Every structure is written in C-alpha cells, then in structure tokens.
C-alpha cells in the first residue's frame, strides 16, 4: 500500500492532531481585560462584520470604535470574519452581539474559535503543502514526499502562532504556497490569482510581492511561445481583476477605498512595536533612532535600506526567472523586509519561514537551523501567551522527525537521532558546521532558560527580550547572506527536467486544443 490514500490520511491526521494539541493551550490576551489580544481582535472583527453594513467595517462610527481592535486587514480577512461571525451567530448569538460580546471568553467559545482556524488550515494550508511536496520532482519515493510534507506541517512556528497565539496566517501563507505550485507547473495566471488572494488576506504578504512580480515580469519577457506583451497584459489584467473583485464593495466610494488603504498601512504606529529581531530594534541598543530622527526621515531611511537590500535578489530573479530562484528570492525578500522595513512584528518572521519550509528538502540542515532560530526569535511572545510548554514539545518533536526522516548530509553524524548514518565511527573531528550549529542552539537554550528563570534587574526590565532579539537578528543577517549566496550561485538555466515537464505540458494542452 506504498503511497496509498491511507498514508496521506495519516499525514493529515498527524497535522490535525498536533494543531489541536497546541490549541488546548492559552491564547493571546487570555483573561486580560480591558484590551485582551489577537484572539479578541479576531472575535471583534466577527462581531463588527456580522452586525454592521459593509460600508462601515473600516470606518469609525458610533457602532464601530476603531480604537478597539479596529479592522486593519484587507477585505478577504473581513469576508472571512463575516463568515465566521455568521456561523457563530447560529451556534451562540451572544458571541457576536454588537457591543455586549466584547471580551467574550468561555470553554465553548474557545472551542469554536479554535475550530475556525483548524478548518481554515485544513482547507488552504495543509492541502497546499501536501500537493507541493507530492509534485516535487527531487523527492523520488512517495514516502519521502509524504514524510517531508508531514515535517513541514509540524513546523512549530506557524502552528504556535495560528493555533496557540491565535491568527489565521495559514490562509495567506497557504495561498502563497498555491501560487508557487501554480507557477511551478507553468500556470502563471492561476499563480497570480492565488498570490493576489494571499495579498488580499493579509497585507504582510507584500514581503513576498517583489519576487512574484520579478518572476512574472522576467518570465514574460523570456517567453517564446506567445507574444511577450500580450502575456504581460494578461497577467496584469488578471491581477487587476482579482483585486477589483476583492475590493468591489469598497470601490463605489473613493473616500471609503482611501480609508481602507489608510487602515492597512498605519505609518503612525512607529518603527517597531515590541522587541523585534530586526536591524532597527537591535540597533536601538546602541543608537536610539526614534529620538534622533523625525518619523518621516525614519520612514525614508527604512524605505531606502529595504529597497537597496532588495535589489540583488530581485535583479537576479528578473534576469534569470526560474521557480527555484523564485523560492530563494521569496526567502531573501521577506528576510530583507523583516530586517529593514518599517513597523515589523515579531510574527512577521513566519513570512520568511514559509519559503524556507518549501526548500526544506533541498538543504535540510541549513533550513532546519533557520527554522529553529526563527521560532526561537518569537520566544518572548510565546512566554507572554503562556505557550512555553507547547513550544518545547513541538520544537523537540519537529527536530526529531526532521533528523529521522530527511537526509542531513555530512552533518548527520553530529545530530543525535539522525537516521541516515548508522556508523558513527567515521570522522570524529567535529565539522565547522556542526560546531556552529550546536553553539547557536546552546545560545538559544541558554537564553530561553535564563529568560524563564532569572529575574532581570529592575533598571533593565526588557533585558532578555532585547538579548533574544539581538541574538536572533545576528542569525537572520547571516542567514540573509547565506540565502543570497545560495540564490546567486544556483544553476543559471532551469534544470532539464523542469524544461521538459514544461514543454510536455504545453504540448499536452496543445493536443487538447486540437
């Protein structure tokens, strides 16, 4: 029964089980009135969208106090909230009654909220990851494909934030995976639609926008089968149509559309919120940019550095557009945005972890290292949410499954539990990579233990979050360099199999037309 439907079912069950176990834990802002956290934000959006007319969703009115978790995500999130709100009103109408439902928390309500995330995950992200790895050509056996998808689905970062902290990243990230799948199979239009959906679910997906843009532009110019400008125009039209459809109810009124835009990009909030492992926050240990420069010049500084850092990977992709490079450029672009852009959340690192997950089978060791550090960079947030226990459990589980099911290459003998090399007799002089990895992990463990057990001095209450940010930021900078190097040094021409499959596909579609 190798590769049967039942094996696939096992993967889905495993992913669901882990998600549900994490969801038993606490969530963002549990029992912390008056403002609560992301859980209440999402519930409040259900309340607002379900009760108010669509024109009032993004506008401050007597019934919609934007200062209390005002809706600031794009329309698809709003529609999704409306749908969840409608279901909630059937199950228990007090959960979404206007004004009265604020701060609703109960056993059954938590169950309801958690199930909405699981359903979204099961519909968008989980199938996307499984399809992606099932279609991957580099993995030859069905079992390897399913195992790799299971490992990726068990990646703690995304699971902890969605099913612990409480968000719906699985939808926007899932659509991004669907976009990559479509592009990989040569369906540029479908890919564009999928990515537009992702973007319209969460504006943070802009971190991924540049590579998609460069890839589509670059590949349109290199196309030989049809008119280049015609192809570009088609893509442009599809993008505009998708956006127009998503924004339709808000386009009647120019002011409303502008108000929506303003809600999506609130520049007034400051350069960063909590401690974030990016350059500006780490730099603040030495120089307080906030005090030296005006808000405008800070924004300009961020914009310039981000764009400058974005150039190498984007230009490379533009000139040599292959899907392989697209995935690497997605990593690079999102890392650059995370490190240099304005107003970054610690959770935004998830946007960088997604393409790394998609590259997991290419270089398992390096990707695993990055993924572990990325989860660690969110540790202060996880402490705040009471998610330390599931963080430990999921991370250890991820590591174990990772090293036992993927080929870690020459580093394998230094990773306990690695199943690929049975004879540890070989070289006992530790490789540089292994030493670096273990010292990096030791730092993570040390900082985690310290921030859980040691009380920081009263003069430095944020000591450990700042240390964790700086430590992770250093890693991310180095990883940015590494992934750039990877992107710039990978094969210039698309691999032969890719060309072949693309041409066979084209000929297949031609045959159908005939």
């Amino acid at each position: 029964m190798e590769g049967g439907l039942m094996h696939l079912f096992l993967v889905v069950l495993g992913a669901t089980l882990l998600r549900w176990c994490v969801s038993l834990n606490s969530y963002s802002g549990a029992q912390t009135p008056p403002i609560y956290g992301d859980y209440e934000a999402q519930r409040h959006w259900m309340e607002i969208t379900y009760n108010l007319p669509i024109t009032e969703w993004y506008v401050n009115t007597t019934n919609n106090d934007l200062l209390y978790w005002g809706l600031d995500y794009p329309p698809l999130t709003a529609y999704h909230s409306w749908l969840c709100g409608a279901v909630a009103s059937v199950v228990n109408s007090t959960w979404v009654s206007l004004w009265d439902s604020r701060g609703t928390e109960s056993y059954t309500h938590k169950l309801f909220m958690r199930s909405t995330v699981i359903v979204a995950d099961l519909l968008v992200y989980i199938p996307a990851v499984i399809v992606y790895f099932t279609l991957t050509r580099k993995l030859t056996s069905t079992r390897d494909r399913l195992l790799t998808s299971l490992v990726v689905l068990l990646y703690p970062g995304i699971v902890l934030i969605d099913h612990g902290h409480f968000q719906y990243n699985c939808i926007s990230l899932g659509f991004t995976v669907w976009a990559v799948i479509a592009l990989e199979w040569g369906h540029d239009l479908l890919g564009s639609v999928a990515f537009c959906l992702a973007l319209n679910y969460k504006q943070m997906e802009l971190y991924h926008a540049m590579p998609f843009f460069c890839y589509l532009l670059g590949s349109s110019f290199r196309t030989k089968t049809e008119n280049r400008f015609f192809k570009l125009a088609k893509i442009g039209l599809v993008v505009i149509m998708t956006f127009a459809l998503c924004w339709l109810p808000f386009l009647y009124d120019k002011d409303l559309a502008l108000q929506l835009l303003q809600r999506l990009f609130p520049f007034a909030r400051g350069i960063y919120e909590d401690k974030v492992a990016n350059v500006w926050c780490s730099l603040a240990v030495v120089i307080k940019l906030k005090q030296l420069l005006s808000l405008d010049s800070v924004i300009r500084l961020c914009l310039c550095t981000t764009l400058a850092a974005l150039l190498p990977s984007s230009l490379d992709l533009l000139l040599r557009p292959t899907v392989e490079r697209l995935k690497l450029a997605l990593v690079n672009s999102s890392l650059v945005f995370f490190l240099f852009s304005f107003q970054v959340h610690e959770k935004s690192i998830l946007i960088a972890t997604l393409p790394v997950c998609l590259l997991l089978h290419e270089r398992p060791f390096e990707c695993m290292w990055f993924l572990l550090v990325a989860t660690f960079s969110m540790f202060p947030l996880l402490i705040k949410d009471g998610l330390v226990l599931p963080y430990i459990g999921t991370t250890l589980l991820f590591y174990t499954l990772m090293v036992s099911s993927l080929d870690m290459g020459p580093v394998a003998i230094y990773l306990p539990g690695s199943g690929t090399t049975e004879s540890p007799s070989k070289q006992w002089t530790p490789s540089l990579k292994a030493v670096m990895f273990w010292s990096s992990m030791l730092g993570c463990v040390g900082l985690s233990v310290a921030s859980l057990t040691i009380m920081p001095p009263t003069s430095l209450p944020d000591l450990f979050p700042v240390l964790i940010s700086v430590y992770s930021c250093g890693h991310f900078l180095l990883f940015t360099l590494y992934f750039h190097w990877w992107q710039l040094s990978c094969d210039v021409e698309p691999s032969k199999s890719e060309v072949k499959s693309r041409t066979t596909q084209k000929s297949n579609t031609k045959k159908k037309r005939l």
Partner: protein
Amino acid sequence: MATSFWNVAATFTFVKLLLIPSYHSTDFEVHRNWLAVTHSLPMNKWYYEKTSEWTLDYPPFFALFEFVLSHFARAFDPNMLIVKNLNYASPATVVFQRLSVIVTDFVYIFAVKEFCFHCLKPARRGSGSDVFTHPSFILAVLLMGNFGLLIVDHIHFQYNGFLFGVMLLSIVRIYQGRNLEGALYFATLLNFKHIYVYIAPAYFMYLLRNYCFKSSKKDGSVIWTSFSFLHFARLGTIVVLIFGLSFGPYISMGQLPQVLSRLFPFKRGLCHAYWAPNFWALYNVADKAASIKGLHSGFLSQSNHTNQASMTGGLVQEFQHAVLPSIAPVVTLILTVLSIIPAVVHHWRYPNGPRGFLRCLILCAFASFVFGWHVHEKAILMIIIPLSLLALEKKRDAQVFLVLSTTGHLSLFPLLFTQAETPIKICLMLMYTIYAFITVSGLFRIPSGRLRLPLLTKLESLYVIGLLALEIYCSLLHSVLGLQQFYPFIPLLLTSVYCAVGVIYCWLMFYWLTLTEKYVESNVKLE
C-alpha cells in the same frame, strides 16, 4: 535500528508533552492525594487516612512509589503534598504529575526495546534496509503509540505505562529463559497493582511446568520425575521475599486486615458506571429487554422498573436484575476460574514455551475481562498489549489483534467525554488503527479485497466498519435527532453492547487458536 527506535520513543514522549494541558479525570486527584498521604504521614497511617474519599487502595509498593515521587513533587509545588488540599491542581502540580507519568513510562519504553530487539520472531523480515517496514520498528510504534495507553495515562491520568513496563519486562525475561527474573518482576508487579493477579495463573503454570519440572516427553507430556525441588525453592524464596518486603511492615504493625480491606472493596457493583464491553453488559441488556417485555405483558410491577432505570443512569451501586437472577461476586469468580481452566490445562499438557505462556496469559486476561466483577473498560489494555506481541508472528493472531484492538480502543471512547479532547481521541484512534492495518497486513503481504479489510473476513470487516457507524451515531446523530434528552444512556449502552460482541468473538477465536495448537518442540527452545 537502535537510532530509529529511540526516535520513535522520543516522538511519542514529545507527543505526551503536548498532551499536558489536556483534561484530567478524578484519577489525577486520586494520585495527588496519595502523594500527599505518603509524604506527610508516617507509614503506619497510610492505609488508615481518609480525609479524601480517594483512599489509598493499591498495594504497598505503589504507596512507596508515590512516596518516592513525592520528594520530587516538593521541588515543583509543596502545597500539593498537604492532605487537606483536596482537588488541588496548580499549574506546577499538573506539570509535575504529568511529567511523572511521562518519565516513569521509560520503564515501558525500555521493556519494549528489550522485546523488539531480543524476542520478536516476525513472520517476515522487512524489505531490505528500509527501517519503516522493519518488524521491530512496527512493533515499537504499535506498543509505544498504543491508543489506549496514550489516552488513559496521558489524558485521563494513570500510571499504566510504568506498570505494563514491569509486566512486559517479566515477559521478556521469560522469553529469554531468565525465569527467576521474570518471576521477580511479576511478583513486584503484583505488589504495585493487584489487578494483575488475574494473569497470575499463567505465570504459575508456566513456571511450574517449565521451570520446576525440568523436562518433557517427546509429545509434550510431563516427566514427573524431573521435578526440581531446588528450582521450586528458589521460586518460592523470591516470591516470599517480595511479598515480605511489601506487606512485611504492615504485618509487623498488625495492620494487614486493614490493608486488605482497602485493597479488596467488595462494595462495588457488578458493572462499573460505564459498562465494560463484557459478558455482563450483554447480560444486563438481556435483563433489560426481558423486563420491558415483562412490563408490557404485565408480569412485572412498575416499582421493579424504576429500580431498573437507575442502573442505566450510570451510578456505581449494587442493583437487582429484574428478570434474570442477580449476580453475586462469587458467581463471577467461579465463571472466571472455569473459563481459565482449559487454557491452563492446555498449557500443562502442551507447554509451548514462552509463546504458549503468553497465549495462556492473554486468555487469563480475557477471562477476567469477560466475566470479572466490576471490570473497568481500561482493563482491555491487559489483553491488547500482550496480544500486540504476537500480532507480527502469525497471521491468525494478527487477525484477532486487529479486530480486538479496534473494538477495545473504541470502547475506551466514553472515558474522554470532554469536547476539547474529542478531536484528539478521534485523530489518535484513526491514526493508530490505520497504521496497524497498513503495517500488519503489509508484513503478511495481504492486500485488502473488495468489501474486505486486509487480513479480516467479510463479516469481521463489516463489524469493524460498523464501529465507525456506531461512533458517528453516538457522538453526532444521537443528539442531532434530539434523543439525548429522553435516552441519555443509549450511546453508552450501544457502545458497550456492540463492543462486547467483538470482544467475546475475539476471545472465543483466540481460545480456539490456542487450543488447536499442538506441541511443537522447537517452540520450547529459548531465544
């Protein structure tokens, strides 16, 4: 192989870590109370203390086990060790108690490793170097990932993993021919939890027949003159020593009657609150059906019937059957003993080595489950776990194992009734069952046919698929149809009756497989 074994062990340990925040039953408080009692009172008060209704009712070794644990507990939260702190469950207490189960599970993990590496004679070796189809790997997953153990220990809360670890270890030692060690472990196990006394006849017969009598004739019958008094004396010494260590202090304090009265409370009813799927579940239903029929035709008065209804309401109490004769504890004991006798006698006549012993042990566990007094549904694990050890060796055993594990595990569903844990139990159950069917049938190279699950007959397949339908009805349709209000007991009743049929079928089938097995000399050869 060793690496992948430890990876499996690590994987399940981390899954257990993730289950820490899940719901825990009153057994959590039971064990918290025992920690407090053993920690803060002198030994001579342990079996007299009754501040909590959950008095200490396990044998002395378990009390000592709690006593040892309590010293670690102090580092987490000393308040859990105060006897008067009833229902105390601070986060640190929960983490400590859960961790104590997870850590003591390593006894079980060690025993599983010993069995997989030294005792397994699989029907077929795995294909080549592939770890995932290696029989030891499959058995390790089936044992460590056992659905019942995971939910009973790590959600419901008990220490079965540790106890089954000791049991498995004694089985392993017997497989290895280290009979005295096997006896030592089993005697210790009895002093941890006395429910294992039900499988003692198998140990008694095996050790008598294979250790005290040193040889058999060619056809397997006993050579009376080969009896070794030395071996008998050694065995006796070990058993007396262990029991002396355990009960000695209480005998010297003159507390033995008090301890025994705690260990054997006969005030409980024939059936547990939720009927275990055994013979008595069918008996109760037959009585119920007869009484309804009687009521309709006017044989019985109304007063009898109200008594009947309270039984199904789910309270632990003695109750009178309406039509069929009421059952006294001694009747269940007689039936249990009677149904064990053929197995034990067969083992005497055809001493088929450690595997014959294991079959006898399973039959003892079966008999006590099917006919025992106040049987808990959890006791099914005492059959499923040893049966897993045989499942990869013979096709027919595998068949019984698949039917019984699915039925038995499903009968554990009512144990977890909280909504938040429902997806967990469903996912885990499906994963275990699918994995078991795929891997076990893969090992015997048997594909699933039309309308038939692999290894199973059509009828068995129908029954197993019926379990799915049953669960859908009980957890979904019953309340959707609005019957929950009028007949709240129907889902539980259906589950135990339906599962009882499967359990009894498996029992008879396994009995038949064992009794038709003739003496094979090579079986007796030790590993």
